[in-house]
């Protein structure tokens, strides 16, 4: 059970669910529309299932290892893997910040979400002092408004609270 809850397994499981979603829907499409999705989706689902089974039987994956001599592309990057062991709480915090950014942009638009996000992240996550955080927030806000809105004339999203509508999903 513990192995099933490991990050890699959950990732493979989610990808498998997506692949199966595509395969099942494709079965209901016309011939030309389902050809490619089935040709790719079925083998992909099988390979993902094998990756999940390999959690209990690692020998399955070992047979498919590819070694190309000295090329270090084939050596696991030990430094990267060491770094990759992040605490789950840290990961959750970072994802939380991104969700906050998305919600902020949706509610109050880029004009207010940009400086607010930069300020709060720099101060509370990045542990910068207030002055640096405020300065960087103002510079970022000025750039986003100046370049995107004024120069390029993109209508940056103003937020649901300020009258902009979310597009149709």
């Amino acid at each position: 059970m513990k192995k099933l809850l490991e990050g890699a397994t959950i990732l493979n499981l989610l990808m498998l669910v997506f692949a199966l979603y595509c395969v099942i829907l494709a079965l209901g499409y016309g011939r030309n529309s389902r050809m490619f999705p089935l040709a790719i989706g079925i083998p992909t689902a099988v390979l993902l299932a094998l990756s999940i089974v390999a959690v209990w039987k690692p020998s399955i994956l070992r047979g498919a290892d590819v070694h190309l001599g000295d090329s270090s592309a084939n050596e696991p990057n030990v430094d990267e893997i060491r770094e990759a062991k992040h605490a789950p709480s840290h990961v959750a915090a970072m994802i939380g910040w991104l969700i906050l950014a998305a919600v902020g942009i949706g509610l109050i638009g880029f004009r207010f979400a940009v400086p607010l996000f930069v300020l709060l992240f720099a101060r509370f996550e990045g542990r910068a002092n207030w002055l640096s955080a405020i300065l960087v927030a103002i510079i970022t806000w000025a750039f986003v408004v100046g370049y995107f809105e004024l120069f390029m004339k993109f209508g940056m999203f103003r937020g649901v609270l300020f009258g902009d509508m979310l597009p149709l999903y």
Partner: protein
Amino acid sequence: MVYSVRIIFAVLTGFLVSMGVSQEAIGQPAKTPAVPSTINLVIPYIPGTGADIQTRVVARFLPKYLPGAPTFVVKNDAGAGGRAGVQTVYRSKPDGAAVGGAYTPDALANEALYGIDGAGFDFSKFVPLMSTYHQPYTVSVGPKAPYKSLDDMKRSTKPVPFCTTTGMDMSYIVISTKAIGIPMRLIPGFKGAPTAMAGLLRGDCEAVSLGIEFTNRYLKDGVRPIAVYGVERSSIWPHVPTSKEQGYPLELEISLAFFLPPGAPVELANVYRDGLAKLYRDNEFLEAIKTAGFTPTYADAKRTQQIVSSLSGLFSKYAPDLRDVAAKTQ
């Protein structure tokens, strides 16, 4: 003294009232509605297409003919097979800040294929301003194709393959071949008319159906026109018979329409209509459109509405055939 003040007051009041009455009597509104300082010209096509180029030229020259000389920003909202941009305008507030531009048959083809709910708009509810670029559609064949007339194509023992893009090109092929009785099969998926032309010249298919000005450029490469879908011969191709002359009275044309969202007040629409009418008499603007390779025709709001109604009827009539072909390509 009081009596004389009353008389002066009465005369002044009467004068002011009569000014107001006389303004209304000669049909002039007492006040011209204001247009926003920034106006989005939303088109459902990517940058570089014919509609995009013409719209950018309009955006450049139109401000001087509108009160306050507003800034126009062209927005390419090209998603959902050409529906996204039209939907954006349909959902916009009718305050003049959003003006839509679209090829009329494109928008109506989407409505016919997906229904009003599926398309996300009812084109008949838009407030038309004017339309331009009225071009008849044509049918042309490749250098090695054996056909010389519509009847030749009709008599073909096997389905004639047509290279096609999506939207109005495909719809017009389905409508015309159904109306004439030409056995047809589609080679869909070509991204843009130039790619379809390359397919024709390469031999991927035997025929294409595209606008006359665009097709005309490829005659030197071996493309052969068979017919123009109109009632009168075009000055561009005086030697090419019309479909009517060949016994098939079909009128299929492309036109680029500009419109306001549903519910836009008449007074506001008239400001845009007047401005656009003056624009299409501006020699500098007309020269710029011609330099870009397009013919700047002009149809006012009333004529545009007639075109839309007529095309809408045509697409409604052939909607089952369009859906049938769409289902078969799946």
